[in-house]
């Protein structure tokens, strides 16, 4: 009796650490797997996939051919984490880009993390620094300006995370920049103004900017004036900042229209704000006389609808949904090719074109509903 009792006791003493150890090792196993998937540095290629036995294992049957590329593609994306830090989630651009990421990656088993700084530069910087701790594979950022997020972007790159910058490039270059060519957009704006406000008109035009510090605005301004400076018949009678604020744009425009009843054209910098500009024109009863042009991410609600109802005569469109698809493609390329972080330094400018009532199509814009 005595021996059996002590035997049981011994067995129990042995069993406890064994159990504990096995629990630990199970845990670390699973951790190790996700770790490998999360930060594997080697590009996934056909050859590497073949070496790993994935290709050879496909059964050769008469029921069609297996696609050897499939595994490469899916395994490069499964379990990956892609983070997205825009200026503010509520903007049309951020909505479209985030949705593109979700549509493309979530079905493949990748995770999309979004952060909403709500136009707070500091909060955005914090969000990026926090994300570094979470070790995502890619961080997609939309810079508020060229400096503020430079340090966090550099930290992220130093931590081995790919950084894709959208629309606004930071002074800190990273793996990929994707964005509208704002200088070109500015040129398109300027050309439209020149077209419409030539010899037979007063030649007076007004420009409604966002905040003067926004680099996108600076680039657009450069583009506009590079055109207008060649056309002395065009007189810029007003060039004011409305800070991306529709009511401010409305007030600015109302005043300009009072001072210059013979105004010929207005170029606004963003359709999110220029609803207010157009409203001022309408209130002044000058909708038919003043040429109104703005820029748009091609959101139906703010863009094409206002072309259709005549609020805008034209807009320079950089299609946000298309940008989102390009973003998704680039992220896929990064995750598959696994270049050294920062080595690509690739610049991708998305196309811009002018949309007027004449060339307006039902698919010129994207709608929130279609994004799902």
């Amino acid at each position, binding site marked *: 009796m005595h021996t059996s009792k002590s035997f049981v006791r011994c067995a129990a003493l042995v069993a406890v650490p064994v159990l504990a150890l096995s629990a630990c090792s199970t845990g670390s196993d699973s951790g190790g797997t996700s770790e490998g998937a999360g930060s594997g540095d080697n590009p996934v290629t056909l050859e590497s996939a073949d070496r790993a036995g994935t290709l050879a294992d496909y059964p050769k049957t008469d029921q069609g051919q297996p696609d050897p590329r499939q595994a490469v593609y899916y395994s490069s994306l499964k379990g990956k984490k892609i983070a997205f830090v825009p200026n503010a989630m509520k903007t049309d651009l951020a909505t479209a880009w985030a949705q593109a990421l979700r549509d493309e990656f979530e079905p493949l088993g990748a995770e999309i993390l979004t*952060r909403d700084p709500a136009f707070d*530069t500091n909060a955005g*910087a914090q969000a990026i620094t926090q994300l570094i701790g979470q070790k995502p594979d890619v961080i997609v950022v939309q810079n508020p300006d060229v*400096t503020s997020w430079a340090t966090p972007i550099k930290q992220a790159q130093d931590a081995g995370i790919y950084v894709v910058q959208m629309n606004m490039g930071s002074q800190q270059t990273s793996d990929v920049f994707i964005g509208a060519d704002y200088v070109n957009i500015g040129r398109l704006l300027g050309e439209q103004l020149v077209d419409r406000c030539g010899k037979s008109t007063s030649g007076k035009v007004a420009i409604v900017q966002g905040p*003067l*510090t926004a*680099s996108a605005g600076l680039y657009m301004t450069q583009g506009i004036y590079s055109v207008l400076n060649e056309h002395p018949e065009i007189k810029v009678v007003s060039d004011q900042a409305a800070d991306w604020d529709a009511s401010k744009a409305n007030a600015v425009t109302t005043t300009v229209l009072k001072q210059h009843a013979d105004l010929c054209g207005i170029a606004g910098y963003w359709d999110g704000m220029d609803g207010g500009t157009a409203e001022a024109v309408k209130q002044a009863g000058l909708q038919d006389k003043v040429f109104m042009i703005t820029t748009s991410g091609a959101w139906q609600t703010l863009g094409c609808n206002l072309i259709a109802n005549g609020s805008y005569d034209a807009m320079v469109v950089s299609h946000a949904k298309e940008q989102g698809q390009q973003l998704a493609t680039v992220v896929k390329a990064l995750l598959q090719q696994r270049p050294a972080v920062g080595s690509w330094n690739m610049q991708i400018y998305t196309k811009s074109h002018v949309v007027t009532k004449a060339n307006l199509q039902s698919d010129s814009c994207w709608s929130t509903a279609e994004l799902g």
Partner: protein
Amino acid sequence: MQVTASLARLRYKYVPEHLVGELLTKRWIDTAIPFIFLVATVAWAGASVPEFFSSNYLGLVSRDLGEFGIVVLAMMIVVIAGGIDLSVGSNFALGNIIALLLIGVAGWPVWLVLPAVVVVCAGVGAVNGLLIGYLRLRAFITTLVMLIIVRAIADLLVLKFSTQLLGSEEPSFLWDLLGTGTIAGMPTSFAILLLLAVVAHLVISRGRIGWHLLAIGGSRRSAYNAGIPVRRTVCLTYVAAGALVGLAGALYAARLGGAGGGTGLSYEISALTAVVAGGISLGGGRGSVPKAMMGAIIVFLITNTLLRLGASSGASPMLLGAVLLLAVAVDVKWNKNRSKILAKVYVSPAYLPMPPMPETSRGSQSAYAVNDRLAQVDKFGLDRLEGPEDPVLDRAGNLYCGTRQGDIMRLLAPDYEHIEVFAHIGSHPLGLAIDRDDSIVACVPGMGLYKVTKDREVIRLTDETNRTRWSVLDDSRLRLADDLDIAPDGRIFFSEATTRFGIERWIYDVQESRGNGRIICYDPSTKTTRTVLRNLVFPNGICMAGDGESLLFAETWASRVSRYWFDGPNKGQVAAVVPDLPGLPDNINRASDGNFWVALTGMRTPSMDLALSMPGFRRRMARRIAPDELLFPNLNIGCIAKINLAGEVLDVLWDASGVDHPAVTSVREDRGYLYIGGLYNNRIGRIPLRDADPEFNGPVSYWGERERQSVTA
């Protein structure tokens, strides 16, 4: 019944209910609420963010905390002086843009930029300070206007120089150290915050200007009346706040280098929320740096964690608003009700079962049988003395006693008609004794143990003892020194009746009847004071037993007299001498025949005895009714008992009528007479003793013969 009693005994012995009240008396209890809130916030953040406790994460976020913490510090300095600074956010933005301009456009070196920015922002603070401190404008409106003006200036600067700022920043080691470097493993801004917090804490809690700030915040008028330069100090708080905010702005510039228009937007609300969440009163006068830092961490963690969780953009301001409201509500309620709660919960009665009461009825065979032997007394100093608690006689037979006015009076022998103030102490002296050098040693409630020499020099012997280990209440100060006696070697043993109440609230100690008191020894040879015996139920009279190694002491509410050995083979032991007196023993003094006189200041009553075993009843009573209506022993009767060391009651003198000597607190035998004192009496009484030694004098019998001083000395 037995079980219930045992349960009650156990409950009141082991559940330290009195600690609740003692905790509430602590000044740091104010800090407890924000601290709990902080712990909850950290727990929430830790639970929501898996990597929260990794050093990497904490390192990253502490950098952002640095700047915000400095802004909170600035806000705190203004708020505790009774002001408010809404312009911190704008000033922060100004500091940021000026730092960027000086570095990027003007090309100044960093070591020059930093002070320049601080000076400019301190200048903004100085404008606030001049308007609010000297011109007495309202802080709220003034700083609100400054918020708008300074924000406009910052925006104008941004607009004017925005193109020049783009990409103009030239890296320098010092600038990078400020923005992205570390000092001693901490992000630079956090290290700077830590340093500033320590300095600010020292200045505010220890420095003159800090006390001035708190005084002004508490009551501007009183501070002015006390001679504090109110205007200048108020002005300086805004200057200091401006300087701190400027520093934070420069750090922000170094970290992000961005001149966006939204810099520091709504920082004033965040900082205000942090200050209030830390438990700093918006009304001013109360607050500390640790509180502000706790508030800063709370607010920072909330915003940071919500951001990390990807909450939608409205969540953070909404939650912060809720926190601000909650904190303000708690602050208001807490300030308003703390003293009320304290008054309600502080009195915490204990379970004190009393032994059966001995028979006292007139004509019975009991040793305590009532008589009228105190009915005929001589009265000295009638209506000229208030509260002679413990009269004592010197070698010459002069009478000394303490009075309510805080004096020790001398009544000159032999007729005691001439009464003079012997010495002014300041508080009502209770127990007196005469030492070897004929000095008078007195127990003075609220002050401690004092000595008055023959030359009337008042000397403080001690006013503190060693603090009880683990006690919540700081019991190192003497609150209610009651009676004393002096051992032959000069050591003074004295009782402190209770450590939980001052003498003005002794009535609540009756309700508690817990072992709140102690016996303390003061050794004049080493000038040290040590507590020798704790947890006594209102220890009162102390009298040397005569063997040089033990003393008798009375525990008033427990109605018992015990013996304590402070030396010899029984050192440290306590033994009951009379465990079941019919009344409440007060002072004990020597009789000429080697026995002891015990003054009974009141009589036990069946109702009070019952109540002592019903702590819950006494607690309800203490909470609900006025002090003068509380249940009470019978103090309307006087009694003096003579006992010996064996615990036998040898003689009893009663004043059953209660007219002449109710509530006897002390008796002294001298030359065949018994002198009677009472805490609430207006005279000293005297009755002749039969069979007493007509030559007996206390000091002479205790300290030995010396040539008798003349009566008129």
